[in-house]
């Protein structure tokens, strides 16, 4: 079934329309972002309202690292951005993981906002106007370009490859001893402690990994749009990604991908003037109503509709 979905995505460029190619590229990047959050929310049970901070900071980082009218090196900038994202996640994680439950949600919210204000109020990154990334990074080996990120089609398949890579990487991590421990901690932390597992290193590991992957998504997003502004660090954005998770179904990685598609497509639908005329301006109303309905009626997301096929998954609620 997943193969079917992957094939559908891979075939989108056949429509030829650049609009769709770029739209799906955007969705795939959001899907990577959503999967990184799913690791925290669905697999460890930590609801973070500040995750967009890692996405946004990475975007600003690549914008800073890129010389104004020249392409930066992909091979240098990506690892740099990933490492800084991981370091930031480690620093924030050391502080926020001391709390749990409602406190954790609020503390992540507050840290996310702290970083938002840092970029919004100070001259660090052009203030509320944001900054531009004029030339996308260059991906070349031995002097010749391997992938030209400026071309939408090549960018599309590049992002697709990364999406698949991240998906399989996370799948693999979830069946590792580390992943099993995370699943156990999510279900019953007290029992895990009584078995000898210290919760903190596992949670921190997951937090850093999630932050790093969110940074990857932020990097790609900045590359696609050529522009970053503080709004991508806001808690509104963090909550939006949470919405994608619940739309698609948290706890199963493909749910995050489903959710990203569902959200953007829903948004396009609600904001289309062709369908809704002047109400289209207020698409967030429809979005709000949709979220409320999903929470009340289909809390396990769209993915739960597919539960009739296949066996129960490891990272689901249970115990």
């Amino acid at each position, binding site marked *: 079934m997943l193969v079917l979905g992957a094939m559908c995505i891979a075939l989108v460029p056949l429509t030829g329309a650049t609009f769709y190619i770029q739209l799906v590229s955007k969705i795939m990047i959001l899907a990577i972002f959503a999967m990184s959050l799913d690791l925290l929310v669905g697999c460890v049970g930590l609801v973070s309202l500040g995750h967009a901070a890692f996405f946004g900071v990475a975007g600003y980082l690549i914008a800073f690292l890129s010389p104004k009218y020249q392409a930066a090196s992909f091979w240098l900038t990506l690892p740099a951005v990933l490492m800084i994202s991981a370091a930031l996640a480690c620093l924030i994680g050391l502080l926020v993981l001391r709390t749990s439950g409602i406190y954790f949600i609020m503390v992540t919210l507050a840290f996310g906002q702290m970083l938002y204000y840092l970029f919004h109020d100070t001259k660090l990154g052009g203030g509320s106007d944001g900054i531009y990334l004029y030339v996308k990074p260059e991906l070349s080996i031995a002097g010749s370009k391997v992938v030209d990120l400026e071309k939408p089609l090549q960018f599309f398949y590049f992002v697709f490859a990364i999406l698949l890579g991240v998906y399989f990487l996370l799948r693999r991590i979830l069946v*590792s001893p580390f992943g099993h421990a995370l*699943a156990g901690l999510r279900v019953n932390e007290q*029992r895990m*402690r009584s078995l000898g597992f210290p919760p903190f290193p596992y949670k921190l590991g997951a937090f850093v990994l999630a932050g790093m992957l969110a940074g990857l998504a932020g990097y790609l997003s900045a590359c696609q749009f050529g522009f970053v502004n503080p709004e991508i660090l806001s808690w509104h954005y963090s909550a939006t990604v949470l919405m994608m998770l619940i739309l698609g179904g948290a706890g199963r990685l493909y749910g995050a991908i489903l959710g990203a598609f569902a959200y953007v497509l829903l948004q396009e639908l609600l904001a289309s003037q062709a369908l809704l005329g002047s109400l289209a301006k207020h698409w967030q109303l429809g979005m709000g109503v949709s979220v409320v309905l999903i929470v009340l009626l289909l809390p396990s997301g769209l993915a739960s509709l597919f539960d009739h096929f296949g066996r129960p998954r490891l990272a689901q609620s249970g115990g």
Partner: protein
Amino acid sequence: MIVRGLSARGLTKVFGGLTAVNNVSLDLSSGTVHAVIGPNGAGKTTLINMLSGDLAPTAGSIQFDGRDIVGYSSDQRSRMGLGRTYQKTNIFGSFTALENCRLAAQSRERHALSMWRSTRAYPSLEREAERALAAVGLEQRAMAIAGTLSHGEQRQLDIAMSLATRPQVLLLDEPLSGMGADESASMVGLLRGLAKDHAVLLVEHDMDAVFALAEVLTVMVNGCVLASGTRDQIRASDEVQRAYLGSAEARGG
């Protein structure tokens, strides 16, 4: 062979205005089952929680392996060799029985933080899990989803998980709760076998099981130790009869 033991001295726990446990001392040594009995609300679970590290005592000390472990967290104590089960069954329902034990065994391996390789790549973990399941008699049910096991089997699995961590001391909080006659009998047999190599603390209401298993008993009432001694001493004590055993038998114990 060094006889490893757990000793508690003067354990006290005060919640606001309520003294749940008052100056309780006891010893556990390998090969012995020490039962703690008493009416509901006597403070037995609070006592176990202090021993396992789930609750910090207001006063008192706990010695294990010659060290005072009061400042240690529950996961640290587990790694030192303290295992416990809870009154409420605490298994991971969506994993198989084997996976439950394998997870428990993982805490003892260096590979526990490994992210890259699948758990199937670590045969030693699987062996530990199989050993633990066999010790409680669940080897036939290794591949069953834990949530589908019967109540008695789940309680056995709970113990198997603790065993997979190779503890020296076992703190068991009402392992027989909710069990019918047959299940109780096999659990008693299981516990008797475990007692040979471990130091066992048993909190239980089932008096038949208690007297079948325990050599040493401590009776708690209202947070205090009413009496402590051998099985025969306690059975013979008038005080204990009045305070607890009489009423327990009337209830059908």
